[in-house]
């Protein structure tokens, strides 16, 4: 029976990636070009593009969950401020975390690799959605702060890349720096995956012995001032916030 389930999930996962790819191609070559032809207003374009991306990601999540390739448990969504303005900081164990998170937070801002903006299929979607490109290190921090100050919610993975299983959590200081500069309200999202797939250094076709179980816990928002001693300069504040965040996530995930 276990063997049968494994075989089912192997075939299912392969079919899922084909479906994922086809929808991606359809969005990249039909849906988003149409959007760029018919919607000219930058603001409306951004909102529509993000809605479409989120809808596609929700579809992927729904297909993967309803065919039991993965399971997802989400708690704490009541902590999300629908008006925005929150700095959403999430842990990042797998390749599909962002798909799940964007399905949960449709209009959120995020930072993407510069290479993605130039990708022939994905480029148009992220350009229309007006996500932040990571090209210029100095501008990147400024853009993140500006977006938050203008009232948008911003999603960052403070690890900067996928965390490696079994190693202690270490965050890059960028997220803490953005939090300090924007005096942000931080929404911590502890995302973990049992029976993990799509980890760093693991190819997509190597599936685990049982279906991956994602657990997403949205924690109550924290004002950044509450993570520092208050009388410190920006540089020290950054370290204090970073240390506080690592302890917070360690406690939640252990």
């Amino acid at each position: 029976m276990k063997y049968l389930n494994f075989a089912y999930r192997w075939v299912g996962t392969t079919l899922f990636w084909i479906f994922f790819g086809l929808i991606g191609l359809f969005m990249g070559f039909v849906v988003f070009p149409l959007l760029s032809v018919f919607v000219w207003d930058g603001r409306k374009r951004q909102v529509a593009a993000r809605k479409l991306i989120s809808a596609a990601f929700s579809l992927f999540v729904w297909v993967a969950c309803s065919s039991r390739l993965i399971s997802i448990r989400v708690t704490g969504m009541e902590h999300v401020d629908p008006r925005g303005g929150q700095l959403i900081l999430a842990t990042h164990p797998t390749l599909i975390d962002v798909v799940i998170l964007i399905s949960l937070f449709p209009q959120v801002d995020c930072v993407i690799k510069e290479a993605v903006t130039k990708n022939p299929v994905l480029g148009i979607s992220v350009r229309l959605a007006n996500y932040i490109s990571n090209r210029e290190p100095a501008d990147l921090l400024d853009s993140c702060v500006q977006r938050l100050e203008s009232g948008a919610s911003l999603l960052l993975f403070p690890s900067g890349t996928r965390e490696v299983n079994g190693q202690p959590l270490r965050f890059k200081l960028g997220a803490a720096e953005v939090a300090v500069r924007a005096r942000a309200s931080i929404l911590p999202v502890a995302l973990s995956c049992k029976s993990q797939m799509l980890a760093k250094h693991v190819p997509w076709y190597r599936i685990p012995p049982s279906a991956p179980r994602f657990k997403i816990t949205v924690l109550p928002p924290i004002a950044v001032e509450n993570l520092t001693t208050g009388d410190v300069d920006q540089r020290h504040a950054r370290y204090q916030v970073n240390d506080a965040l690592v302890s917070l996530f360690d406690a939640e995930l252990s």
Partner: protein
Amino acid sequence: MESEALYTTIKEILVTQFEVDESAISRDANLYEELEIDSIDAVDLLVQLKELTGKKISPDVFKDVRTIGDVLDALTVL
């Protein structure tokens, strides 16, 4: 700005703002490993140097910068 003057400026920024021990600073000192400045400090340093010299280090060059000498090279070559 002359390379020597630039070196002095960088040294000054490192000591006064990033609390780096002056005796540890040399042209060959690795910013991240030996001087223990973090990537945000590095960006901060570049922004300040840009304001002082009017020269900008491109992100591609910045990625390969490891030592103070690399910073000087990047700023004087351009």
